C-alpha cells in the first residue's frame, strides 16, 4: 500500500481528491500551526501557505515540535515549512515571515484559497482574518487553546456566526485603581503595582498610575462591578473625603519626587554608591514612608482586607526568614527571602542604570524576558506583598503573572488541530457542491448539545436545516474540556449558530468601491459615495480602528476641526496608513443606526465618457438595523467568560469599561467551559511586544483606566 491508500479508503476517493486539490492558508505557525501543518501534509493536502511574524523561542520547544533548539531565533513559518515538507515530499508549502495584517495579505490574496485555518493566539489577528474571510467569502476554521482547554469553530459568511458576531472580552483582567494603589490583597495586585513603579522609574512616568492625579475613591457610590471592587470600596468607606483625597495626592507627589527628582544625573549616574543611594531612597519612599502616611490617613486601614506594615530597609535586610526550602534549588523557582528581595531591589535598579541601558531611561517598557526588569518587578512586588501580608511568589511565578503567560501544552494543540482538519475535510467535501456519495453527506446532524449521550445518527435535528448548498451543514463547533460534560463528553460538538444580523462585521452587506485612490480625496468619498450614493446622514469612517472622519452630535470643537482637516487629503494620504487597494473601511451612521464595510479597489482607467464620475460602487445598499437590534443580548453574560489570560487591566472603580467590552454571549450549553476565544498557538506574538497603553475603549470619561500588557 502506498502513502495515501488509507486516506482514499477512509475518506472516499472523491473527498480525498478534493483534499489533494484544495488550496489552504494556515495563519500562524506556533503551537496549533505546527500541529496543523503536520496533519495537513499527512492527510493529502498539497497546496499550503503559512504566515507567521514570529521567531522561535526556547519556551516554544515543549509543543511547537517542528522546531529544535538550533532554530531558536529563526522565523517560525520558514522552519515549520522545511520540517513539514520533510514529512511528505509531495507537498508544496509556501511560507511567509510577516504580519497577516500586512497589505500584501489582503482580500485578493485570500481569494486565491479554498479554505483558511486559523492558528492564532490573539483576538485582534483573529478578527482581522475573520473579516478578510467574510469579505473574500471563504470558509474559516478558527481555533484557540489555553492549557487543557480549547475550542474550534467554523465561520462562513451568511451561514454561521462570524468571529465578531459576539463581542469579545479581549480577556482582560480588571482591577480597581485603588486596589493597586492602596488596598492590594492578592499577589497580582502587587505585581501590577510593581510594573507601575517600573514605569515610573524607568519608563514614561506620566503613564504610570503612581504619578497620576486621579483619586482612588472616585465614585464609591456608583459601584456595580466585581466583588473585589465593591469590597475594596467598602473598606475605605470613611476615608473617602475630599480632604483625604488631597492628602493621598500629596503622598503620591512625594513618591514621584523621590523617584524623579532624585535620579542620579551626569557623573552621579556612573557612581555606584549614588545609584544605590537613589534606589534606597525609592525603597524608603514606597515601602516605608508611604505606608506610614497611608496608615494614618486611612485610620489604620480599618475594615480593609489586608493591613499594611511599613518596612524599613534595615528591617528587611535583617530579616531572617528562610527562603522557601521546599522547591528546587533554582533561584527563579523558589520564593526569595525578604533580605534577598531587598538586595535584589537595589541590585536590579543598579543594573537598569548601567551605561548600556541608561539611554533608554524614561522610555523603558516592562518585558517579561528582560532579566533586570523582571528581577525588579519580582523584588518590588514581593516586598509590597510582605508589607500587606500577602503570599509571596517566586520569580518564575511572577514572570507568568506579570507577562500574562498563556499556558500551553502539546496535547491540547494536537486535539484542536486534529478537529480543525476534520472540519476542513467536511467543508471541502461540501464546497464544490458535488453530491458525492460518501458518508459525509449521509450523516444526520449533530446531537444538539450537552446531553448528547450518543454520537450515533438516529436523532434528527430541525435546526440543521441548512440549505443543500450550504458548505457548513455538516460543520460543528467543538469544545475541548478537562472534565467530561454530561454523560461523558470530552469533546463537545455543538451546532453552529446562525449569523447575528446586528454583527458589525458580517451583519450587513459589504460594498466595494473602485476608484483612483491617488486622486480621490476623503471629501470626495464622503460626498459622492457616502452621501449621494448610499444616502448617509452623518457618516463616521474608521480605518484600522482609527476614526479618520466623523460628524454629528457629541463631537468636540477640536475633533471637528481635526476631521475637517482630513477631507482635502487624497485617499492614500489619509491618516492611519492611508486608504488604498484592499483597504476595508468601517462606515457608520449613528443617526441611522447603520453600519457597513466599504472595500476599496484601486482603479484608474475609467472611460471618462461613459463614467464621468470615475468610480464604480457594487454591493447591496445597507439596511437600517434599528428595528432589529437587541440590546440585552449584548449585555448578557458580561462576566461570564473572563478567560484567564490576556491583558491585565486596571480600572478606576468598577467600570463601564467592562460593560463596553465584556459582553461575549455564549450558548448556554457551553457554560461549563470556562474559556472562550483564548489566546494560544504562537503565544509570544501577543505577550512581549505590546505597549502598555491607556485604554481607549472607555467612552465614559473614566480617567483611571489603564491596560497593562
Amino acid at each position: 500500500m502506498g502513502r495515501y491508500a488509507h486516506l482514499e479508503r477512509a475518506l472516499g476517493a472523491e473527498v480525498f481528491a478534493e483534499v489533494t486539490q484544495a488550496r489552504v492558508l494556515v495563519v500562524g505557525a506556533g503551537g496549533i500551526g505546527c500541529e496543523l501543518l503536520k496533519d495537513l501534509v499527512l492527510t493529502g493536502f498539497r497546496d499550503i501557505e503559512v504566515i507567521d511574524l514570529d521567531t522561535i523561542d526556547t519556551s516554544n520547544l515543549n509543543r511547537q515540535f517542528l522546531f529544535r533548539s538550533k532554530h531558536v531565533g529563526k522565523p517560525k513559518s520558514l522552519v515549520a515549512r522545511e520540517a513539514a515538507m520533510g514529512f511528505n515530499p509531495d507537498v508544496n508549502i509556501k511560507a511567509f515571515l510577516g504580519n497577516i495584517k500586512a497589505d500584501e495579505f489582503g482580500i485578493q490574496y485570500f481569494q486565491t484559497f479554498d479554505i483558511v485555518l486559523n492558528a492564532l493566539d490573539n483576538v485582534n489577528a483573529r478578527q482581522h482574518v475573520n473579516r478578510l474571510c467574510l469579505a473574500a467569502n471563504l470558509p474559516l476554521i478558527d481555533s484557540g487553546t489555553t492549557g487543557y482547554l480549547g475550542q474550534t469553530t467554523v465561520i462562513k459568511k451568511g451561514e454561521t456566526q462570524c468571529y465578531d458576531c459576539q463581542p469579545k472580552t479581549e480577556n482582560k483582567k480588571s482591577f480597581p485603581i485603588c486596589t493597586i494603589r492602596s488596598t492590594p490583597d492578592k499577589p497580582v495586585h502587587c505585581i501590577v503595582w510593581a510594573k507601575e513603579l517600573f514605569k515610573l522609574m524607568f519608563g514614561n512616568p506620566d503613564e504610570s498610575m503612581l504619578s497620576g492625579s486621579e483619586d482612588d475613591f472616585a465614585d464609591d457610590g456608583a459601584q456595580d462591578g466585581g466583588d473585589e471592587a465593591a469590597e475594596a470600596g467598602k473598606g475605605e468607606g470613611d476615608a473617602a473625603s475630599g480632604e483625604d483625597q488631597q492628602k493621598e495626592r500629596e503622598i503620591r507627589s512625594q513618591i514621584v519626587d523621590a523617584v524623579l527628582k532624585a535620579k542620579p544625573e551626569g557623573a552621579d549616574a556612573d557612581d555606584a554608591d549614588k545609584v544605590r543611594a537613589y534606589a534606597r531612597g525609592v525603597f524608603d519612599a514606597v515601602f516605608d514612608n508611604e505606608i506610614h502616611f497611608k496608615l494614618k490617613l486611612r485610620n489604620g486601614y480599618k475594615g480593609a482586607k489586608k493591613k499594611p506594615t511599613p518596612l524599613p530597609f534595615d528591617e528587611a535586610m535583617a530579616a531572617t526568614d528562610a527562603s522557601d526550602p521546599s522547591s528546587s534549588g533554582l533561584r527563579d523557582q523558589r520564593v526569595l527571602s525578604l533580605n534577598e528581595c531587598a538586595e535584589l531591589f537595589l541590585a536590579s535598579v543598579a543594573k537598569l542604570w548601567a551605561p548600556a541601558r541608561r539611554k533608554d531611561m524614561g522610555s523603558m517598557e516592562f518585558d517579561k524576558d528582560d532579566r533586570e526588569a523582571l528581577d525588579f518587578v519580582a523584588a518590588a512586588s514581593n516586598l509590597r506583598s510582605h508589607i500587606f501580608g500577602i503570599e509571596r511568589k517566586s520569580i518564575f511565578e511572577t514572570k507568568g503573572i506579570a507577562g500574562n503567560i498563556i499556558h500551553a501544552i502539546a496535547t491540547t494543540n494536537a486535539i484542536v488541530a486534529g478537529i480543525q482538519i476534520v472540519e476542513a475535510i467536511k467543508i471541502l467535501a461540501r464546497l464544490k457542491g458535488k453530491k458525492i456519495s460518501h458518508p459525509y453527506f449521509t450523516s444526520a446532524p449533530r446531537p444538539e448539545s450537552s446531553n448528547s449521550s450518543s454520537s450515533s445518527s438516529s436523532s434528527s435535528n430541525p435546526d440543521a436545516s441548512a440549505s443543500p448548498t450550504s458548505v457548513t451543514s455538516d460543520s460543528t463547533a467543538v469544545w475541548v474540556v478537562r472534565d467530561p460534560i454530561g454523560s461523558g463528553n470530552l469533546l463537545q460538538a455543538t451546532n453552529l449558530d446562525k449569523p447575528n444580523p446586528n454583527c458589525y462585521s458580517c451583519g450587513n452587506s459589504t460594498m466595494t468601491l473602485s476608484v483612483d485612490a491617488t486622486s480621490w480625496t476623503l471629501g470626495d468619498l464622503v460626498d459622492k459615495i457616502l452621501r449621494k450614493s448610499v444616502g448617509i446622514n452623518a457618516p463616521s469612517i474608521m480605518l484600522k480602528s482609527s476614526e479618520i472622519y466623523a460628524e454629528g452630535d457629541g463631537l468636540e470643537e477640536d475633533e471637528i476641526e481635526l476631521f475637517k482637516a482630513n477631507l482635502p487629503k487624497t485617499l492614500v494620504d489619509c491618516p492611519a496608513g492611508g486608504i488604498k487597494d484592499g483597504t476595508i473601511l468601517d462606515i457608520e451612521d449613528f443617526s441611522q443606526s447603520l453600519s457597513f464595510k466599504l472595500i476599496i479597489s484601486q482603479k484608474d482607467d475609467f472611460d471618462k465618457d461613459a463614467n464621468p464620475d470615475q468610480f464604480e460602487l457594487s454591493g447591496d445598499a445597507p439596511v437600517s438595523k434599528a428595528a432589529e437590534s437587541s440590546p440585552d443580548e449584548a449585555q448578557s453574560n458580561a462576566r461570564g467568560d473572563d478567560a484567564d489570560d490576556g491583558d491585565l487591566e486596571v480600572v478606576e472603580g468598577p467600570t463601564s469599561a467592562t460593560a463596553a467590552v465584556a459582553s461575549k454571549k455564549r450558548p448556554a450549553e457551553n457554560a461549563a467551559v470556562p474559556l472562550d476565544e483564548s489566546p494560544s498557538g504562537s503565544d509570544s506574538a501577543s505577550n512581549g511586544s505590546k505597549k502598555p497603553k491607556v485604554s481607549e475603549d472607555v467612552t465614559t470619561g473614566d480617567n483611571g483606566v489603564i491596560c497593562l500588557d
Partner: protein
Amino acid sequence: MSAITGDQVAVYDRQLRLWGVQAQQRLLNAKVLIWGLEGSNVEACKNLVLAGIALTLRDHRTVTAADVGFNYFLRPEDIGKNRSECASKRVQEMNPLGSVSSSSEGPAKNPEKLKELLKGFDVVIVGLSCLGFDFELAASMDAACRSLGAGFLLTVAAGEIAFFFSDLHEHIMQERSAQGSTDVGQTGQNPETFSFPSFSDWLAAVPALLTGKSDDSFKLFGLFASFLRGKAERAVPSAAADFEAHCQEVKCQPKVDGLQTMQQAFGHFFVEPLVHVASVLGGLLSQEVIKAITRKDPPLVNSVCFNAHTGAALVEHCPAKPAAPVKRKAEEDVADLLDD
C-alpha cells in the same frame, strides 16, 4: 529524584506553569513503553517526549510505505528497516533533554517473558495491531502490568473512529489543577482513589456492552472484540462478511456516523489510521498518561472513543458500573474560580 535544571525550566516553561514543578519532576522521572508504532501511539511518542518523559519504543515490524504515509518519525529510506529503531532517532531529536530508546522485541505469550518485557515502566501503551489483534494477549499484558504496578493503555483505530482502553488499577489522584491560570495547583486537597476494571473485565463485559446503552461507537469496538475473541486469525480484511454475520448473530448493528455497513467498518480496522484522527485521540491518550504519572486531575475511567465524523469524544465506564468518583460540590468549584 534529581532536581530540575535551568535548561529544563527554559524548555518546559509553559507546561510547568500549567502543572507545576512537582508534576514535571514526576514526568522527568517516569518511564513509558510505547509498544506498537501505529495510529495514536505515534502521537503519544510526540506528546510524551515533549512533556519530558523517558520513552522506550517497541515494535517488531518493519517500515512499509504505508507507515511512512502517516508516521512522521519515518522516512522513505527507512522502508524495510525496523520501525522502532528508525522512529526512535527522530523522536529523540524532538526533545534532546529527554531519553528515548528502542526495542524490536515481538510480543511474547509466555507470561514470564511478557513480564520481563514490561518490567521497569510506569505506564505501557500498546497498539492492538502490533499484537496481531489478539485480545487475549492484550488481557495478559494488562494482567502483567497490574502485577508490576504499571498503568496499561490499549489503542485501536478504525478509519475515522479511534478508541483507547485505560487501566490504572487503583489510581490515587493527589490534586486537581486550579481552574484559573495563575495558580499551578491547590494544596491541601484530599487524595481521591479511582478503581479501574482490568482488560479481562472489559472483555467479559463485551456481551453486555453490545446490548446495553453504550454509544454505538463503543459497540463497534465491542463487536470487533467479540468477533476476534479466541480467533485472532480472523483479523484479516477478507473476514468482513463473517464479521457482518457475527454482528447479526449477536444482534448488534450499531449505527456509527461515517460508516455505512459493518463490512466497511471491519475493513477500516486494517488500514492505517488517519493522522488527524490519531492527533485527537493521541492527545487525549497522552493526557491520561500524564495524569497517571503526575497523579494530578481525575483520570478517565476507562474507555474513550473519538469519532471524527461527529467531532465528539466520549468516555464510558466499561463494565457499566458507574463507580462515580466523589463529585466535588458546585460551591467548591465556584470558590476556586473566585480565588483566581
